[in-house]
């Protein structure tokens, strides 16, 4: 029999005992619905976590440090690599090279230094850091009081709330609840602070005196020995000038944008390009081994942002090959992904339980149908149906029930997921938390659920179909 005829006959047979077959189909629908609801929730949670992680900027970021650094994040790796004195300098040229690596969004120097800020004449010692414009999307600035920097070169500052309270003279005792953004902190917005810093000015004669060495240091393949030779020669060829700059406070955040560094995190943030233009004397610049003669800035570390957390491993390897130390929270994401895979698996298993029950329903319904349609099967065989035709017909009936059940189930599962989502968001709103989309039904889940329902139904139809096909036509036609 042709496939079209099979489906048509199957549909017609199903319509003959509408109630029983709709109940069976509904059973499959409920099974599929529970599967879809569970999986869509799992997928939704995973997407939510991924979204959060990406915005936190922790998981798609690699910290790059020079192996010359007095403190490498990866001590073992630095022991295996070239000795610290021989390895490359993390300077502007290296930063550019890293930024050109595939899947790298940007590589920004970490400029941070401890200095003094004056507010209303009183000095406050703190850690200051430059922030690239891309940090605007960081979670830490989601609930910012005030606003983000107007431009990369503006003389503006964003304060972490603890420093803001410091400025206001509020002492937080250990164990007291974390400070909240309120009217007192609001009062700081728009106020001026004065930043004291040391500008590093290269001696004007240095580049001319050693043009060849400067060229070597600038080009990336320069042998370290030549560079350090040149560095020794030019070690003293810069001067340090103390300076001050007035900054306007534009925003205060109660989060910790520098959380990756823990307690040593910066408390005051400035636009990165502006800070770079100040040529602040950094601790790296004071080390003797640095080729400090040129105008090429060197960095203690560079933050590399990637397109996706999935690229961390490959980019990390590429940077290591360039001769630098790297650090990322890759392992944490790996564990997280494993967690979600397991979660999805468990949700899928629980969702499938209902579908298993539904599959038994199909077996039952079709077995009943065989008893009822004994005679019909006998007739069909008598007028030329082969065993295969009969088997395929019952198979098709199971398949049609699975298809309809799959559609019903996807619709039902979608609704269940929606209700759960709405319920959760009402709860979140009561807790003064922003609404989240916990639940996602991607198109592949819709298609997959329907295909799965058809498959499960057909597997359930295997036994009844085989029984129907084996039916002896003489026996089936005997009883009148």
């Amino acid at each position, binding site marked *: *029999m042709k496939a079209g005829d099979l489906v048509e006959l199957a549909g017609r047979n199903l319509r003959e005992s509408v109630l029983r077959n709709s109940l069976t189909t509904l059973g499959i629908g409920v099974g599929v619905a529970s599967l879809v609801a569970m999986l869509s929730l799992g997928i939704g949670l995973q997407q939510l976590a991924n979204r959060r992680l990406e915005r936190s900027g922790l998981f798609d970021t690699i910290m790059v440090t020079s192996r010359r650094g007095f403190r490498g994040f990866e001590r073992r790796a630095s022991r295996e690599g070239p000795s610290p004195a021989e390895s490359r300098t993390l300077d502007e040229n290296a930063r550019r090279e890293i930024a050109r690596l595939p899947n790298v969004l940007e590589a920004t120097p970490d400029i941070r230094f401890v200095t003094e800020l004056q507010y209303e004449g009183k000095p406050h010692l703190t850690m200051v850091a430059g922030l690239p414009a891309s940090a605007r999307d960081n979670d830490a600035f989601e609930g910012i009081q005030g606003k983000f920097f107007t431009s990369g070169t503006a003389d503006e500052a964003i304060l972490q709330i603890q420093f803001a309270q410091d400025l206001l003279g509020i002492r937080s005792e250990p164990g007291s609840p974390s400070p909240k953004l309120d009217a007192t902190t609001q009062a700081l917005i728009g106020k001026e602070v004065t930043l004291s810093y040391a500008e590093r000015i290269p001696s004007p004669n240095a580049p001319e005196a050693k043009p060849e060495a400067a060229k070597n240091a600038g080009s990336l393949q320069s042998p370290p020995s030549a560079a350090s030779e040149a560095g020794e020669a030019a070690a003293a060829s810069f001067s340090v000038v103390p300076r001050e700059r007035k900054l306007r406070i534009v925003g205060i955040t109660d989060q910790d944008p520098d959380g990756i560094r823990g307690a040593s995190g910066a408390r005051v943030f400035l636009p990165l390009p502006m800070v770079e233009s100040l040529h602040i004397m950094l601790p790296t610049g004071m080390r003797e081994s640095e080729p400090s003669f040129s105008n090429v800035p060197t960095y203690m570390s560079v933050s590399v942002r990637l397109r996706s957390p999935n690229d961390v491993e490959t980019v990390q390897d590429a940077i290591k090959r360039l001769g630098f130390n790297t650090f990322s929270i890759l392992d944490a994401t790996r564990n997280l992904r494993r967690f979600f895979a397991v979660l999805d698996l468990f949700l899928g298993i629980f969702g499938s339980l209902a579908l298993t029950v539904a599959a038994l329903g199909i077996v039952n319904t079709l077995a009943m149908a065989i008893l009822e349609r004994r005679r019909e099967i006998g007739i069909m065989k008598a007028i*030329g149906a*082969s065993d295969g035709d009969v088997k395929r017909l019952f198979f098709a009936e199971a398949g049609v029930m699975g298809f309809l059940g799959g559609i019903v189930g996807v619709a039902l599962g979608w609704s269940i997921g929606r209700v759960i989502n709405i319920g959760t968001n009402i709860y979140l709103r009561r807790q003064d938390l922003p609404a989240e989309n916990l639940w996602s039904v991607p198109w592949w889940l819709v298609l997959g659920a329907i295909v799965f329902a058809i498959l499960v139904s057909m597997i359930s139809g295997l036994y009844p179909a085989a029984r129907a096909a084996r039916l002896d036509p003489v026996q089936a*036609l005997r009883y009148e």
Partner: protein
Amino acid sequence: MTDNSMGAGAIRTEAVQRHFQMGEATICAVDGISLDVPAGRFVALLGSSGSGKSSLLNLLAGLDRPTAGAVIVDGRNLADMSGEELSRYRRHNVGMVFQSFNLIPTMTLLENVELPMRFAELERGKRQALAREALERVGLGARLAHRPSQLSGGEQQRAAIARALVNHPSLLLADEPTGNLDSRTGSEILDLLHASNEQFGMTVVMVTHEQALAERYAERLIFLADGKVVADHPNVPTSRKTAAQVPASHKPGEKETT
């Protein structure tokens, strides 16, 4: 299909046996029957119930396999055929008519008659045209969309005959075709079988226990008892004259009203 309409349908059985196991006892429903029926004949199998006539018919139909012996139709031994080959044989070579009509109650007449051609994988358009034609030939052209339950017994049996003939079989097997009908309607059905036999030339084997009816239509009467042939003789059908007067375009549906 038209090849079958002329000359085909010769039956030979060679010491065919069909045994059923009923617990301890073995029942010999068909016990060594050897027959030779040339193509195109109208043969009646007579006997009381349990004589083995229906079992023999099922063997001829390829619905059942012999325990021993051979059933040869048009030179092919059904006992050697695979299940798939048997179903193809039933589909293309055999038409069956039953006492209880055996139409599928959930289908219209047209769909019932179409069904064998679905198994033969004919196109829908061709299928419907042939089914309509077959139903018109038995006088049910106006009842195509009716379900069997909406029809009288005679009409249902005529629809069953249309279904049996739609694939132009070389063998028409009728198992007590008049058993559920009153005698007048029964005669009409046999007139129709007879006319089809004349028109298409297929072999007709009819199982009946009414000897009078058999004598009116069959050219040969075979009497069975306990699975064996007890008598086998030619017969001059008494209805032959009246049947010959029925034109090919005869519509039994009209005859009912006269």
